[in-house]
C-alpha cells in the first residue's frame, strides 16, 4: 500500500502513544523490526478526511532525542535521515496534558529539527479533571504549531487530529525554541559546511550521535569526530547546557498558558494505591499473589485451547491421510509439515494469555512498581526488576517469556534474562519428570505429609530457579555492558487498562511468533521427521521384507506387528544411527543408544521424549498412556540383564532435561529476539555443557 503522506508519532513513554496509533490506524497495521535493534517497528495506515491516505510510523517512546538505550536511538535516526524508507513528512508529537513541562522537552528538540510538526495534546480530559487549565490557543500561538486536544482513550479529538494532519504544511513553521548555535558556534558551522545542512540543531545532534547513525558514511563520521576534537567539544557538557536552556524556554512558554493546582488529584489518588501496592509486607504478598495467579492461569486456561488445537491437527492429519495417496510426499506433508505447524500453533494460547497479563500490568502502571520493588534483589544477581515476570513465566513456557523481555530497556539485563529463562522448569519438562520420577522414586510418605515423589518434583523446580539465578550471577561478570545501567524511571499514575490494547497485544504477539519463530520450528520438525523415517541403505526395505514373511502374519496380531515394525524402523533410521553414534559420548551419563534416540528426537520439544520412549519400547496406543510406557521402561533390560532405568540413570536423565536446551522453539525465539545467531548458539552450548556436567555428576554419585 502506497500512502500519500508519511507521519511519525513521537512522544514520551506512558503518554498514550500506542493508544493513539491504534485509534488512527485501527487493525490496518503491520509490525516489523527496525534494522539492528529489537524494537517493534509499527506501521499503519489512516484515511484522511480529504481522501488521501497517511502512513503512520510509531516510534519508540523516549524522553529526549538523546538516547538512554539503543532502542531509543531509533527515534533520532528515523527523524534525521534524508529520503530514508521511513523519513516522515510530518511529525505528530503526543504530549501528556497532565505533565506538559517534561513532555515539552522532547517537543522542543523535534521542533528544532525543522520538520513540519503538529502537537496532539493527549489526556486533556484527565488534565481538566485534575484542575489543570491550559490556554490551547495561546500555547499554539507561542509555539507556532497546531495544537489539537485529544483523548486517545475515549477516542475524542481523533477526527480533528486527522483533519490537522491533512491540512499540515509541507514546510516547518514552528518557532525556534532556543539559540542552538550558542552551544557550540564554530563546531556547528563547521559541520553544516561538511554535511550540507542548514539546520544548526541537526548539526549539533550529529556531533553527539554520529557514531551510531547508519546514514552517515564512515568518512563523514570520522570527519565529524575530527571537527569535535578541533573545537574541543564536550558532548555531555553541551547536553547539560542545552537541556537547561530548553527548560528555561519551556517555563517561559508555560508561564501564561498553563495553570496547575498545587497537587493534581490524580496523583494523590495514585499515591493511595501505591501505599498498599508498594507496602513492605502487602506489596510483596500482592505481587506474589498476582504472579501465582498468572502462572496458574497460563497453565489452566491454556490447557483446553491447547488440547483443542492438538486434536484439530490430529483430525487434519487423519483426514489428509485418507484423501492423499500413500507415499513419502504425503508422509512428509503430514508428519513433517503439519506436525510442525501444530507444534507452532499450540503455543498460541500460552503466548496470548501471558501477553494479556503483561499488557494489563504495563498499562495500569503496576509493572513499573514491580521493577521498583524488585530492583534491589534482582540487581545483585545481574538482573533487573523487570526480569521477574519472564523468569516466573518461564515456569509455563520459555517462548512467550523470552518475547516478554522486551520490556527490559537495559541491554545487558535483557540479554542475561534471555539467557537464563530457559533454565526455569517449563511445562514441557513436566511429563518427562513425572514419567522418570514415577519410575524410580517410591510413592511413599515421609514425615507423614511429604510424598517422596512430590518432593522430588518440587526439588526439580527449585533447582531450576536456583540454577537460573547462579548462571545470571556468573553472566553479570562475563557480559560487557554497552551502556551504563540507569534506573531513572517514571512511575506513571495508575490507570485502568485499555482492553483494546490488551487484545491488540495478544493478537500481535501470537502473530509475530507464528510468522517468525514458526519458520524455524517447522524446518526443525521436518528435519527430525526425515531423520526418524529414513534409514541408510536398504535397511528399511529389509525390515519390511523380513516382516512380510508369512510366519509373522500368522503368529502376531496386525496391531502388534505394526508396532514391532515401527520400533525396528526407528532403530535403523538415521536417528537410530545417530543414537548409536553418540552412545560413546552419553555412556558416561548412564545412557544407552535408545535414550540417545530420544535425546535427538526430543530436540524439537522436550515432551517428545515420552513419545519416543513409547515407540522405542513399542507401547499400545498413544504416548499419553504414560502408565504403559512406564511399565515397558521398568522392564527394559541391558544386554547383561540389569535394568536400564535405575535411580542413577533416571536422575541423570532428569538433570539432562533440566539443563539442556532441548527446545527448537526457544532457539528460534531467542534468535528472533536477539537478531544474532551467536546468542542462541552460545546459549545452546552453555546449557548442553551444564546438562552434561550435572548428569555426569548425578549418575556417578547415585550409581
Amino acid at each position, binding site marked *: 500500500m502506497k500512502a500519500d503522506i508519511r507521519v511519525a508519532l513521537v512522544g514520551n513513554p506512558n503518554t498514550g502513544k500506542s493508544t493513539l496509533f491504534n485509534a488512527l490506524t485501527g487493525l490496518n497495521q503491520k509490525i516489523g523490526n527496525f534494522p539492528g535493534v529489537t524494537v517493534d517497528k509499527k506501521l499503519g495506515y489512516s484515511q484522511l478526511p480529504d481522501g488521501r491516505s497517511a502512513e503512520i510510523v510509531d516510534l519508540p517512546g523516549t*524522553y*529526549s532525542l*538523546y538516547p*538512554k538505550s539503543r532502542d531509543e536511538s531509533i527515534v533520532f535516526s528515523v527523524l534525521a535521515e534524508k529520503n530514508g524508507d521511513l523519513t516522515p513528512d510530518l511529525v505528530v508529537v503526543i504530549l501528556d496534558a*497532565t*505533565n506538559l*513541562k*517534561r513532555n515539552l*522537552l522532547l517537543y522542543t528538540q523535534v521542533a528544532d529539527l525543522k520538520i513540519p510538526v503538529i502537537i496532539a495534546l493527549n489526556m486533556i480530559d484527565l488534565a481538566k479533571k485534575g484542575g489543570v487549565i491550559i490556554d490551547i490557543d495561546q500555547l499554539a500561538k507561542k509555539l507556532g504549531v497546531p495544537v489539537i486536544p485529544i483523548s486517545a482513550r475515549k477516542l475524542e479529538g481523533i477526527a480533528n487530529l486527522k483533519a490537522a494532519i491533512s491540512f499540515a504544511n509541507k514546510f516547518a513553521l514552528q518557532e525556534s525554541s532556543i539559540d542552538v548555535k550558542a552551544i557550540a558556534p564554530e563546531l556547528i558551522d563547521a559541520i553544516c559546511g561538511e554535511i550540507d545542512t542548514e539546520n544548526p540543531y541537526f548539526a549539533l545532534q550529529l556531533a553527539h550521535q554520529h557514531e551510531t547513525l547508519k546514514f552517515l558514511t564512515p568518512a563523514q563520521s570520522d570527519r565529524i569526530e575530527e571537527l569535535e576534537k578541533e573545537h574541543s567539544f564536550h558532548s*555531555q*557538557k553541551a*547536553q*547539560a547546557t542545552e*537541556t*537547561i536552556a530548553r*527548560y528555561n524556554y519551556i517555563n517561559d512558554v508555560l508561564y501564561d498558558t498553563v495553570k*496547575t493546582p498545587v497537587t*493534581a488529584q490524580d*496523583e494523590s489518588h*495514585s*499515591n493511595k494505591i*501505591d*501505599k498498599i501496592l*508498594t*507496602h*513492605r*509486607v502487602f*506489596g*510483596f504478598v500482592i505481587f506474589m499473589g498476582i504472579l501465582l495467579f498468572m502462572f496458574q492461569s497460563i497453565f489452566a486456561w491454556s490447557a483446553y485451547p491447547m488440547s483443542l488445537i492438538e486434536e484439530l491437527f490430529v483430525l487434519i492429519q487423519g483426514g489428509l491421510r485418507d484423501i492423499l495417496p500413500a507415499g513419502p510426499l504425503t508422509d512428509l506433508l503430514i508428519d513433517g509439515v503439519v506436525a510442525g505447524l501444530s507444534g507452532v500453533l499450540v503455543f498460541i494460547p500460552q503466548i496470548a494469555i501471558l501477553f494479556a497479563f503483561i499488557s494489563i500490568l504495563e498499562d495500569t502502571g503496576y509493572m*513499573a512498581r514491580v521493577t*521498583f*520493588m524488585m*530492583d*534491589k*534483589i534482582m540487581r545483585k544477581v545481574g538482573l533487573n526488576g523487570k526480569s521477574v515476570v519472564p523468569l516466573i513465566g518461564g515456569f509455563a513456557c520459555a517462548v512467550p517469556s523470552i518475547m516478554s523481555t522486551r520490556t527490559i530497556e537495559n541491554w545487558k539485563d535483557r540479554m542475561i534474562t534471555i539467557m537464563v529463562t530457559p533454565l526455569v522448569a517449563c511445562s514441557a519438562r513436566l511429563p518427562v519428570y513425572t514419567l522418570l520420577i514415577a519410575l524410580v522414586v517410591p510413592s511413599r510418605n515421609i514425615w507423614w505429609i511429604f510424598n517422596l515423589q512430590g518432593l522430588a518434583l518440587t526439588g526439580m523446580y527449585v533447582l531450576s530457579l536456583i540454577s537460573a539465578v547462579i548462571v545470571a550471577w556468573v553472566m553479570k561478570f562475563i557480559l560487557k555492558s554497552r551502556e*551504563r545501567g*540507569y*534506573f*531513572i*524511571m*517514571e*512511575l*506513571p*499514575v495508575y490507570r485502568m487498562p485499555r482492553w483494546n490494547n490488551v487484545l491488540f497485544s495478544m493478537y500481535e504477539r501470537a502473530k509475530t511468533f507464528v510468522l517468525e519463530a514458526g519458520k524455524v520450528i517447522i524446518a526443525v520438525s521436518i528435519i527430525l521427521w526425515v531423520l526418524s523415517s529414513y534409514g541408510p541403505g536398504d535397511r528399511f526395505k529389509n525390515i519390511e521384507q523380513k516382516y512380510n514373511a508369512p510366519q509373522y502374519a500368522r503368529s502376531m496380531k496386525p496391531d502388534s506387528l505394526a508396532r514391532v515394525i515401527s520400533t525396528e524402523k526407528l532403530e535403523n533410521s538415521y536417528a537410530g544411527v545417530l543414537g548409536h553414534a553418540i552412545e560413546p559420548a552419553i555412556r558416561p551419563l548412564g545412557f544407552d543408544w535408545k535414550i540417545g534416540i530420544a535425546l535427538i528426537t526430543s530436540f524439537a520439544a522436550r515432551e517428545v521424549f515420552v513419545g519416543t520412549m513409547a515407540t522405542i519400547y513399542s507401547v499400545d496406543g498413544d504416548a499419553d498412556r504414560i502408565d504403559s510406557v512406564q511399565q515397558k521402561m521398568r522392564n527394559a533390560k541391558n544386554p547383561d540383564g540389569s535394568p536400564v532405568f535405575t535411580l542413577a540413570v533416571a536422575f541423570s536423565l532428569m538433570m539432562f532435561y533440566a539443563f539442556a536446551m532441548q527446545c527448537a522453539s526457544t532457539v528460534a525465539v531467542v534468535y528472533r529476539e536477539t537478531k544474532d545467531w551467536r546468542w542462541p548458539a552460545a546459549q545452546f552450548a552453555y546449557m548442553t555443557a551444564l546438562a552434561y556436567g550435572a548428569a555426569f555428576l548425578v549418575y556417578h554419585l547415585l550409581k
Partner: protein
Amino acid sequence: MTLSQLEIGEIGIVKEFTDLEMSVKLMEMGCLPGEEVRVSRIAPLGDPIAIHVSGYQLSLRKFEASTIILQ
C-alpha cells in the same frame, strides 16, 4: 546534603550534581537545579526511592540520588 539522605515526605531543592553523565539524564527527566523534589516513598528493601518532581513521580536508585546535591 544529597537527595539520598532525605526521609519520606521531606522536601529539598536541587542545587547541583556530582556526576555529569547522570546529571544529563536527570535534567532531561525534569530534575533541574532550582527544582523542588519531595521523597514520596522508599522501596520495601530500602532501595530505590521514588521522588515527586516537576509534577510526576520519578524513581531512581539511592546511588543515583546521592549524585544530586540539595541546597
